[in-house]
């Protein structure tokens, strides 16, 4: 019986929430970052500057959403590790397909353009 009461108490404790301020801060930051990434297009930045700014704002926004809105920042490390390590496989896939894309465009240029 006393064990039951203890479990109940713990259950109540585990539902303790985070302060509303943190959510409002992240919310505001996401707005500002989205505005900045829109400005990248507005001012028509080109080339390496454009791509690095897009990626920078994108990863910052994604990180904020995952860490605070999806509570990953407060989750146990095991869950975080199980979720984030598979992303390296996606990074490998991107690398492979960049090489493949370059090869495809190379052969197309050879056969379509030079072949004529």
């Amino acid at each position: 019986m006393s064990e039951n009461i203890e479990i109940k108490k713990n259950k109540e404790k585990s539902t303790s929430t985070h302060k509303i301020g943190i959510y409002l801060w992240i919310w505001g930051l996401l707005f500002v970052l989205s505005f900045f990434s829109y400005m990248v297009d507005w001012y028509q930045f080109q080339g390496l500057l454009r791509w690095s700014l897009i990626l920078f704002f994108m990863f910052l926004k994604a990180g904020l959403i995952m860490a605070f809105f999806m509570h990953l920042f407060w989750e146990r490390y095991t869950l975080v590790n199980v979720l984030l390590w598979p992303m390296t496989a996606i990074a490998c896939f991107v690398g492979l397909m960049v090489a493949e894309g370059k090869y495809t465009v190379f052969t197309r240029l050879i056969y379509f353009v030079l072949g004529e």
Partner: protein
Amino acid sequence: MSDSSLENLPKGWKSVPNDLGSDQTAFKGVQWGKAMMWIFLLSDTFIFSCFLISYMKGRASTVVDWPNTSEVFSLDFMGVPVPLLLIAIMTFVLITSSGTMALAVKYGYEKNKKMCGWFIFATAIGGLTFVGMQAYEWSKLIHEGVRPWSNPFGAGQFGSYFFMITGFHGTHVSIGVIFLFIFARKVFRGDFDTGKRGFFTTMKSDYVSIEILGLYWHFVDLVWVFIFAFFYLW
């Protein structure tokens, strides 16, 4: 697993081999539904990654110029074409709905039925607005002659990637909106306070469901962050 026994377990990096090697529950202190939602979202991440990677490969390997997205997606505002205007509004709407969802989860855990319900309802309205604007965008492009096999702006692959990626994302949003409305009703009815058993399950309702629903909704927003960056801005 209760919190008091969690506190006795190793913390930080040492917790990873300890949790995974214990021949018991791997995700300690994580409700099973939440763990399952995370696993589902992981698999969904792979699907969306495959779409975006195939888009990258298609765009990188075409010898025809890619359509200029800031012109294709521009919207006339008082006679002046504003680049990417609709997409920017859609982005802000989705972020707003993500914020209201985060607050709904917070109020859910505080067992504040009224606030939780209204914030879920607001989230659903945000999602509905997003889908509506997406439908407008689709019909606009279809009127302009964009097809999955060709379009008047440039490389023919543009249409197929556009319809595939935004369509799959829009489907996710639509499904989310349906569940948000269902959950708003459940919250207002007090299912999560009384522990009423659900329609598909014999398990008791609990406010942790709101967090699980929130995870899905934030994921939809997360995917849009990547689509916005790679498809519209790049």
